[in-house]
């Protein structure tokens, strides 16, 4: 499998205290463990089971994901920041891998 590629989209300009939308996506097959491959064998479960977002080390939101989440998990939420800082996004794979992405925010 190709290495999962995380992507995050933020508005071009962000003001302190004003809510904005964060769109996140990671390429990942999210194998449910219930489906059979072309050889007839069960494809073992492998999903992104946890997603967390932190701003300056404070948890903004986290999500526990189950196999019912679509392939290439897409998650969108709204947040506001009081000051400039760094957003850290982390996706945790069933195999223990952690895929992360950092985005710095300069409030206007």
């Amino acid at each position: 499998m190709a290495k999962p590629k995380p992507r995050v989209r933020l508005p071009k300009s962000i003001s302190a205290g004003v809510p904005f939308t964060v769109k996140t996506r990671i390429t990942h097959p999210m194998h449910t463990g219930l489906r059979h491959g072309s050889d007839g064998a069960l494809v073992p479960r492998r999903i992104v089971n946890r997603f967390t977002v932190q701003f300056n080390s404070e948890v903004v939101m986290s999500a526990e994901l189950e196999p019912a989440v679509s392939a290439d998990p897409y998650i969108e939420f709204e947040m506001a920041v009081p000051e400039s800082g760094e957003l850290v996004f982390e996706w945790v794979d069933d195999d223990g891998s952690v895929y992360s992405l950092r985005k710095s925010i300069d409030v206007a």
Partner: protein
Amino acid sequence: MAMTRRCVLLMAAAAAFLPGGAAGNENGVMQAIAEFTGGATPLDGGVNLLIPEIADNGGAVPVRVEAAAARRIALFTDGNPYPGVAVFSLGRLASSAAAIRIRLAGSQTVIAVAELADGSYRQATRSIAVTVGGCA
């Protein structure tokens, strides 16, 4: 997503036996909700669950859930092999809403349960028709 013919046939057969209307409990969704709420029964209202009425592709159904003053929001389904979909924990900086794309194995009911800041639980229930199941 790659889908085998066997999977599509199985899902279609499963969908044919689903009851309409109220949420069923074939996959243990009631127990899963009770586990999330610690046994409390969620009240209706206070949660806005936005899903399409009909989804052509059960492999990626957009779902948005909003609940004022929610600390945690969980999504459940009554017709997938497993009842749980996702649990969002929302911190101080996040607003009380989230959107995600989910798999639905066939026409069924989606349930959103929110834990509010005062410790109470609220829920919203929406049924959805799925044309092609998503192999969940």
